[in-house]
């Protein structure tokens, strides 16, 4: 009896580990898409309505889901305090502090930080080009991640269950 319970426990937990990896990947894709959406909004806020950044970022923060919105919300809060820091410093701080609450990787962190260096500077054309640059990277990344999900990620789940079975067979 105890053996059966043990086997079940192993099976369930290994299946859960597999699902965790699958889910993690799905959330990563979702965060990438959310970031892409946010940047598209920023693009139109800058290009069409010429809103200043504190207003634009606030609006975007309200409309986004997942923790990616933290980047926008926290930056707005900091900008409104008018501490006299430059926006690239503020943005870098916020990204580094909040990236752990999202599923984004260090590669995206690096990109976002360098994106912040030219945020707000000079003219709209420059802003748009800059946003387009990071968007094209995201597009590629999203595409890759979706392909990966279709091919590989389901494997995790199956591997999890099979791995569990293997362990139980060896043990018992």
């Amino acid at each position, binding site marked *: 009896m105890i053996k059966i319970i043990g086997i079940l426990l192993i099976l369930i937990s290994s299946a859960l580990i597999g699902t965790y990896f699958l889910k993690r990947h799905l959330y990563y894709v979702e965060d990438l898409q959310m970031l892409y959406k946010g940047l598209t909004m920023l693009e139109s806020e800058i290009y069409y309505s010429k809103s200043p950044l504190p207003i634009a970022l606030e609006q975007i923060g309200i409309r986004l889901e997942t923790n990616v919105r933290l980047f926008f919300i926290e930056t707005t809060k900091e900008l409104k305090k008018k501490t*006299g820091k430059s926006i690239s410093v503020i943005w870098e701080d916020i990204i580094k502090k909040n990236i752990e609450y999202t599923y984004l990787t260090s590669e995206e962190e690096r990109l976002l930080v360098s994106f912040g260096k030219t945020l*707000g500077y000079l003219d709209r054309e420059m802003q748009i080009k800059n946003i387009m640059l990071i968007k094209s990277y995201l597009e590629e990344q999203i595409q890759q991640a979706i392909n990966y999900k279709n091919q590989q990620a389901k494997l995790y789940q199956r591997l999890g269950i099979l791995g569990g079975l293997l362990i139980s067979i060896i043990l018992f």
Partner: protein
Amino acid sequence: MNIKNHLLQVCSPTIQNILNTISYQQFEKIEEIRIRVNQPLFIKNAKEEQFITPYGKWTSYPTEGYICVLEDISLTLELMSDYSLYAFEEEIKHGYLTLPGGHRVGLTGRVIIENGQVKNLKYINGLNIRISHEKIGCADPIIPYVISGNSVYHTLIVSPPGCGKTTLLRDLIRQISNGIPKQSKGYTVGVVDERSEIAGCYQGLPQKNIGFRTDVLDGCPKVEGMMMLLRSMAPEIIAVDEIGSEEDIYAIENVLNAGCKIFCTVHGNSIEDLKTKPVLSALLHKKIFERIIFLSHRCGPGTLEKIMDGTNWERTIL
């Protein structure tokens, strides 16, 4: 919010600390704050120019003054534009920014040209913060000369730069728009504020008191603006700042044809000076303006020199 708080918010921390030592009363008197790369920070009030040391002491020796660095300017600019220089593209193209509170910042730097026109400024190397003083009641002495029974006169304000013509025009607009008890009813005034100087609009909201019957077209070219107001806002008076081009004169004629009164200002010293400028002399010869008001810097900004009757040049009213 007062002038000091407005300005401190938009300066880089170093400059903020230095300016913070200036008292509120002294701030009220400051006309200009100049920040240039690798040059001392200095402050100009009605009487004199003074440098200011890193510890906030006033001095007349340039070598003792705080030397501004490039970072001061770039950070100040970032804060002034609310971190969004791109949102002020149009203004920067014309060499200035408007701050909350209606203060103006003049900019110099490397000009980017495209198709023979100024496209933008980069590598900004100098800022001139021009503090806009709202002098409620400064138009009191001229009001009796502008009102004529049930109407007002076409009025032209003439003065050299920095003598308070915009300040005077603003208060004139405010008083005429609100109406003056026992003297005049209130008139609907349309203001075309091409450089955001009259109403000092920040994100479209007037920061100055310009009266409750006043409509402001902010950042709009004068010629188009006057036509837009005529077509849509039914103004009784149209006010514009710093006329001078031929198109301006043409637009003013349209305003007159529509039966509106006009208040405007122009750079100049005297009637003789105006006559030497081709466009303005043509305007004067049309004898449109019934009142021409001359200002000078003789006893501080806004000294009223004389008031003339523009339809009869022999006649000086004051």
